[in-house]
């Protein structure tokens, strides 16, 4: 499936707009990573555990969005946007949305 954050698909014609599709996931970090993060808060630097965690949850959110688009018969998602919000201490929501379309 074609996923892009442009408003059109270059070189291809959009045949039909199917409307908004979305995917989201809420993840919390686990204790081991939290201890490492505590150390990193003293020394500074990248928190690799968190980067991976957020990367994974972003992939999952995109997968959910893709499933939704497939269910309504789209073969591409355009104008995709990401949004992150912290729901509670130590947990964050990753939200991704876009427009499902049918392209040639």
């Amino acid at each position, binding site marked *: 499936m074609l996923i*892009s954050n442009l408003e059109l698909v270059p070189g291809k014609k959009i045949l039909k707009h199917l409307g908004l599709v979305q995917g989201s996931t809420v993840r919390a970090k686990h204790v081991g990573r939290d201890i490492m993060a505590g150390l990193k808060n003293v*020394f*500074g*630097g990248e928190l690799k555990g968190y*980067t991976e965690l957020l990367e994974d949850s972003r992939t999952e959110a995109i997968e959910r969005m893709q499933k939704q688009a497939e269910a309504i018969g789209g073969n591409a998602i355009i104008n995709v946007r*990401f949004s992150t919000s912290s729901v509670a201490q130590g947990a964050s929501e990753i939200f991704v949305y876009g427009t499902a379309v049918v392209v040639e």
Partner: protein
Amino acid sequence: MENFIGLISFLVLMIAGYLFGSYAERKHYKSILQREEQYRNVVLMALRLPRVSHVEHTQLVSGSVVISVDYFKRFLASLRMLVGGRLNSYESLLDRARREAILRMQKQASDMNASSVYNIKFETSSISKGQKDRVGSIEVLAYGTAIVGK
């Protein structure tokens, strides 16, 4: 006695934060400059619509990083917050995070032989608001559409 132990641990944390933090920052900036040179062939554009005549295919690329400020700089920032003004220590943190996120996105684009990345957007959020609502660590996400073609 308890005050004394508190003072000692504070000093140790300050010194460790200063030494490791400034070392990590220097190393990071060096690697950022080196990789920026390496991925110069991927053109980054903030334009919404691509100005490319021949497009083979397009794909969403993204790069993200979570990065934390060290203890020493956080203390400096808390002092600065009393009088207001520029927070130098957080400025360099955000600068490093943005450039790192861009580089990771560029690497993804370069791995799929893309010539340019269009419509780049940024997302910044603070991960651990934690104690007293301080910015401990921040996450930056950069994303855009990689275009393979001429």
